[in-house]
């Protein structure tokens, strides 16, 4: 998630609070969770009230890039609203310290990227493949991967058409996916610094996105392209093909694996050229760290989605799931945050408490919603997300550690939803429906994203045993009463 950048380097001394004036409740336990209230979803003002309870020394414990001079990020939603994230005024958030860290950290990303560049780190744009190229980038010390594509959330969090309008001026109008905001962000140079290298996948990838990246290249950025093969199992390309199966049980022609290895080596060589480092052991370590994160997220998902009462809200869960792609540009701190999230969820599950009513209706969510407020709305209407298909499943599975690392990455990527059939995408949700664990499915389409228009109908047909609501997510500020009524009516039918 990107935001308008904030803050300048500030002497840490200057942030010391004059406790004389306003600190009413001193926090004695600095490292622990100071918020002991019952779990609930709270709005921005309530978060500010909670934040007031924190001692400044407590706030100063949390910083990115292990830099406690300028890397602090533990700030409430109000901070980011002041700097333009207008939707925060309307969202509801989990009331735990884990949530505060998660939001502060993810909203801080734009600033973090500028700071990375200013502190002589290499900032690498990894676009489109969603989850694999960053592992290679992170293997190189001082190299920070990020996804310009994720700028697609910015217009929604800012409730603003600034980026989308600029993209239109540049020749990509509203008939295209919201990812066009990335093109405007490249142009404005105000959302992330100029990347030291750009990698973009094409081939079996979102076509609107690929077009946008072509335009980014046209505007003078030097992009290294990676070709993504289409994985297919129901009909064979070549009779001579030998087939393999991913660790998620998906079949693919063996030669695709070899092909991807070549593509990833191309990324490695570019990175080696940039940094002057060429140590394959570093890639193995990067895979290990990534696996640690992926295992943790899997545990968080399982615990949250299978608990009697929802221990954590769907919106925060989406932020957590997407953190798997690249650790929001600081994987070490992100891992620490996810540990806190896991501890919080464990504690809540143990106590049998949560953020939603026990009788909340279990639903599955297909496609990440461009507009985060929809996740809030569905929960307000009595729903509870218990399964997701956010087209990033390749970033959620463990990578093999006992084989050659590029091959391991290739095998892992061949799990990707984006390069497979619709049938494979809905397989897991279908299983949950059959087990009676999902009562309804919501598909949030991206207006203008060409694959959505075709795939939604197919998904609806494949999930014919369960009510399905398909929504075209409108542009920022476009959530209408009509859309709310549709959501409300859908939730009513599930009750």
């Amino acid at each position, binding site marked *: 998630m990107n935001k*308008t*950048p*904030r*803050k*300048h*380097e*500030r*002497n840490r001394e*200057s*942030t*010391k*609070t*004059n406790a*004389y*004036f*306003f600190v009413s409740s001193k926090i004695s336990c600095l490292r622990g969770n100071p918020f002991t209230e019952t779990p609930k979803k709270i709005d*921005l*003002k309530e978060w*500010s009230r909670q*934040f*007031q309870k*924190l001692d*400044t020394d407590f*706030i100063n414990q949390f910083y990115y890039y292990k830099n406690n001079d300028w890397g*602090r990020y533990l*700030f*409430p939603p*109000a*901070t980011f*609203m*002041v*700097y*333009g994230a*207008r939707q925060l*005024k309307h969202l509801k958030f989990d009331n735990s310290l884990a949530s505060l860290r998660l939001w502060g950290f993810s909203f801080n990303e734009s*600033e973090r990227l*500028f*700071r990375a560049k*200013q502190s002589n780190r290499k900032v690498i744009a990894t676009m489109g493949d969603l989850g694999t190229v960053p592992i290679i980038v992170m293997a190189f010390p001082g190299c920070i991967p990020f996804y310009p594509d994720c700028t697609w959330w910015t217009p929604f969090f*800012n*409730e*603003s058409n*600034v980026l989308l309008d*600029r993209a239109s001026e540049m020749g990509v109008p509203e008939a295209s996916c919201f990812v066009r905001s990335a093109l405007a962000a490249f*142009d*404005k140079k*105000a*959302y992330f*610094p100029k990347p030291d290298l750009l990698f973009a996948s094409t081939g079996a990838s979102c076509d609107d996105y690929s077009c946008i990246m072509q335009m980014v290249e046209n505007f003078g950025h030097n992009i290294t392209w990676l070709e993504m093969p289409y994985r297919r199992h129901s009909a064979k390309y070549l009779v001579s093909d030998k087939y393999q199966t991913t660790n998620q049980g998906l079949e693919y022609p063996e030669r695709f694996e070899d092909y991807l290895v070549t593509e990833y080596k191309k990324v490695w060589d570019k990175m080696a050229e940039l940094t002057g480092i060429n140590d394959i052991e570093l890639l193995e370590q990067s895979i290990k760290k990534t696996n640690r994160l992926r295992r943790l997220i899997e545990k968080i998902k399982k615990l949250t989605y299978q608990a009697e009462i929802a221990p954590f809200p769907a919106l925060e869960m989406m932020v957590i799931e997407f953190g798997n792609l690249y650790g929001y540009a600081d994987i070490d701190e992100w891992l620490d945050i996810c540990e806190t999230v896991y501890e919080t969820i464990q504690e809540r599950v143990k106590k049998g408490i949560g953020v939603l009513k026990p009788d909340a209706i279990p639903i599955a969510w297909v496609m990440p919603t461009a507009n985060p407020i929809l996740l809030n709305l569905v929960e307000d209407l009595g729903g509870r997300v218990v399964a997701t298909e956010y087209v990033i499943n390749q970033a959620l599975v463990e990578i093999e550690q006992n084989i050659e690392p590029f091959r391991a990455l290739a095998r892992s990527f061949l799990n990707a939803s984006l390069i497979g059939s619709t049938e494979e995408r809905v397989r897991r949700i279908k299983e949950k429906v059959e087990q009676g664990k999902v009562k309804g499915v919501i598909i949030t389409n991206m207006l203008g994203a060409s694959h959505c228009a075709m795939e939604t109908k197919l998904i609806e047909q494949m999930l014919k045993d369960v009510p399905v609501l398909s929504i075209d997510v409108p542009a920022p500020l476009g959530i209408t009463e009509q859309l709310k009524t549709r959501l409300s009516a859908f939730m009513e039918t599930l009750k």
Partner: protein
Amino acid sequence: MKEILTPRERFGLLVIDEKPDRCNIIPLVTSHSAKVKGVKLRDYYTDGEIMARAQIAAIEEYGHDAISIFSEVGIIAEAMGSEFDYPEDDLPVLKKPILAETNIDDISIPNPEKDKRLPVYFEAIEYAYQALGDKLPILAYVPAPFTTGMMLSEADKFLIQTIKEPEYIKKVLKKSAEAAIEFCYHIINAGGLPILVDPLASSSVISPKTYKEFALPYERAVIDFLHRYDLDVILHICGNTTPILDLLPETHADLISIDRVELKTVLEKLSKHLRIIGNYDTSKLLFSSKENIANEVKNMVKLGMTAPKGYIASTGCEVPTNATKENVKAFIKAAKEANYL
């Protein structure tokens, strides 16, 4: 020239040490906007929606880089009990300071959501934020404790008390700081970025020694509170501040807005560590010619842009209510042109 960045993006780049397309141009267009909109000043400072609409009209007219929510520096003191007159077409005037008859111990911290004209601010901030908050920063000017303290009291008595009853004055200032912090807290939650203004702490009014003992610690307390929220804090002090320039970093402010000081001196002393805002002579917006304004502003901006931590082209104080639109436009046009040279 068509500009690609919005003012919010431009301001965002400034505060993260990145060079924007041009410097931010934020003249202190406050009550002057009432004239632009053609509304009476009394309506402007008593009705938040009118204040916001006037600010938006000024933005549309001039194309500068921020909304400025401000009436006058008595607003907190009034909420604490001082009485003000509201002339129909002039700013509020202190009529009866509360400390003339009441002890500071009997004065409570105002509730910004309810007391006197404080809610006008929130109404204005929320309206402006909803209308333009994605494109422009919404700056909300907050009187600093020393200035509020003087508006709670009779000015001459207050200054004498700093010598004769310093502990009592510190009590007044502490309460004023608490009130300012409470006000800031609500401003943040409405979407505004508080700016601290301390015109009565100017060296034109008090000595550096008095500033150091009675103004600076309380400015710093408010600024430190805002830093807890990671906000970049502007401190504006009117008039001559040359004698206290060396003290200003101790306030912990991130951006210093100056008035009647040599810009060159300020750049030499402060610009390595602080961003500088200023400081065109506002009287010239009333009495000078467009051509003269253009020349002087260009020179000022060229000099200001040498500041290593960044610079905002501004006026030294509020744009006079009766300044002509042509002169304000000349200021802004020249500042933009100087950037592109």
